[in-house]
């Protein structure tokens, strides 16, 4: 009987200790394994640096593994990360579909996964939370900026094109979806071509040059959407090389960007680019990610999806407001 009492007391004490330790749990001392794309990419590099700084300041230890946009390698890194048994895996999914099996293994191993930068489609129940851009809205806003710019130039009909990131999956298809759906309600605008530059500015520059040559006989393009500012900057350079004037007047090319990067702000100020967007912003996104992860470790419920806020069009009217947060 004494043994039974001792056992019950020990169990109760252990349960209480466990409960108390959970109640006082927080981000301090937690180990994060952080999986991203290549840090040669300016956005990923800035995001990684800021995220590591902020997570470390919150008392967490971050081990980063990068992959050169290689979904199979990332899936293997996820398995390696599971083997390290961290408190959480923070993941920039390089392929939404290819990470799903490994996410299932992480769940089976009891390791929570927090997704950043891009989303995992059909990831319900497999990820603890996501911090990313509302990509469809981003595409819609790019189209709105394009419409505003053309209307401001007095255009009543226009031929436009888009040069995109990897269209196979992930971010770019969602932005294209938003871009196309918004333009669909403007029948005076004709979307004549969408080309995949795989997020590579040199490829974007080459494609832009080919587009200029192709449409020159038909009066040229009125506007060109580069899916991020690095690509819109490539379009600007291609236009400069081809002697095409930039702007929204007749005979000029209107350039629309996105992604809130230094080159976008610089080109807008120089009058070479009409607009960019206020997201994604590494400064905001990393801060929010670390807050959400800290909340998770503190036992709070975090939303399944969090997005960059505010997400708005940046033109000459508000470049000063975003000059600092978009400085990367």
């Amino acid at each position, binding site marked *: 009987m004494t043994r039974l009492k001792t056992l019950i007391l020990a169990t109760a004490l252990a349960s209480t200790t466990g409960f108390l330790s959970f109640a006082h749990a927080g981000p301090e001392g937690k180990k994060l394994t952080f999986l991203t794309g290549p840090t040669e990419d300016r956005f990923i590099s800035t995001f990684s640096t800021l995220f590591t700084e902020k997570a470390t300041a919150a008392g967490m230890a971050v081990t980063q*593994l990068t992959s050169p946009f*290689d979904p199979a*390698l990332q899936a293997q890194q996820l398995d390696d990360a599971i083997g*390290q*048994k961290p408190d959480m895996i923070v993941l920039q999914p390089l392929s939404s579909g*290819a990470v*799903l099996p490994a996410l*299932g293994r992480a769940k089976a191993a009891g390791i929570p996964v927090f997704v950043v930068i891009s989303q995992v489609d059909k990831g319900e129940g497999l990820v603890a939370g996501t911090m990313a851009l509302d990509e469809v809205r981003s595409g819609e806003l790019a189209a709105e900026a394009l419409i505003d710019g053309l209307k401001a130039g007095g255009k009543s009909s226009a031929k436009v094109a888009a040069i995109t990131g990897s269209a*196979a999956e992930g971010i770019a298809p969602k932005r294209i979806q938003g871009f196309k759906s918004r333009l669909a309600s403007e029948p005076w605008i004709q979307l004549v071509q969408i080309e995949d530059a795989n997020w590579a500015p040199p490829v974007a520059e080459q494609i832009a040059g080919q587009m200029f040559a192709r449409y020159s006989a038909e009066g040229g393009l009125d506007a060109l959407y580069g899916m991020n500012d690095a690509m819109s900057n490539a379009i600007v350079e291609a236009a400069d090389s081809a002697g095409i004037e930039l702007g929204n007047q007749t005979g000029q090319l209107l350039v629309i960007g996105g992604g809130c990067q230094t080159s976008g702000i610089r080109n807008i100020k120089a009058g070479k680019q009409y607009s960019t967007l206020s997201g994604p912003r590494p400064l905001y996104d990393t801060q929010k990610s670390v807050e959400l992860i800290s909340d998770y470790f503190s036992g709070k419920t975090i939303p399944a999806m969090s997005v960059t806020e505010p997400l708005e069009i940046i033109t000459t009217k508000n470049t000063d407001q975003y000059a600092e947060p978009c400085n990367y």
Partner: protein
Amino acid sequence: MGLIGEEKKPLAIFGVVAISLAAALVMQGNTSVELILFSILQYFATIGPVALGLGLTMIAREFDISVGSTMSVAGCIAVVASTSDPYLGAACGIGVGLLIGLSQGVLVTGLGLSSISVSLGFLITLAGFAYVVTGNMTIPLDHADVTSAINAPVLGIFSFRSIFAIACFAIASFIFLKTRAGVELIATGSDPTAAATAGVRTTRIVVIVFMISGGLSAAAGVFLTYGLSVASPSGLTDILVPAISAAIIGGVSLTGGRGTPIGIALGALTLCLLNAGLNALGVSPVAQQVVLAFVLFTVAVAAAPQLYRIIPQRS
């Protein structure tokens, strides 16, 4: 044949790497042995069969640089053809790989073309073909049961994919050591003219090794695609450099006529150990590249003929 002698160097490198990483992981306090071994073998399942096929072409003094595109296009075809039956999809993918290998082998031997030129042409063409097959879209595999089955742990550390890779090496080693095929492959790679004079059908050997290379690359691509539940036209992984590295670490000579399947397996395993072990230690990918480069450089220096003229030999 002295084949075991050829495996001494890769075995020594594998041993050094394995012991170093095991010691580092023990010092780090990482006890997830089963998970780490599973991860190592999963990576081995991806690069092993491709390294084996490529290594065999290298032993035959040829070079199949189209392995990455073959892998990618086979995975895409398998997923597209797997709508009703994943086995049919896999058969189509692997069949296309064999056909690619056969075409390359025939072009190289029949027209006397350089295998690098031919396989470079295939690499580019197949990369474009993958975009056509998928319509430049990532295509999900609609057979979750297949994905689960292909990745499910067997005895804790194996999976269907890794067992397939190990089986490939076991069969290749048996054929290499126990039949005339091994001798004829070495002879073809060492001196094709002399081998032909001695009665070796070098043309047939070269065509067969290209078919094996195409078939194994395709199989690796199909199983990787099924394992990741998605086919991507841009390729799911960068395979060429790891496969060449594995073959070289495994003792395959770039000038042909040297190497064994067991050596290639040891080379691939060394690479997997480095990759998974350094990941488990949290070493940055940049540092991992430096470590891999150091290992390759060491292997290259150890194989340098001039080195043994400089180092005094024991009498």
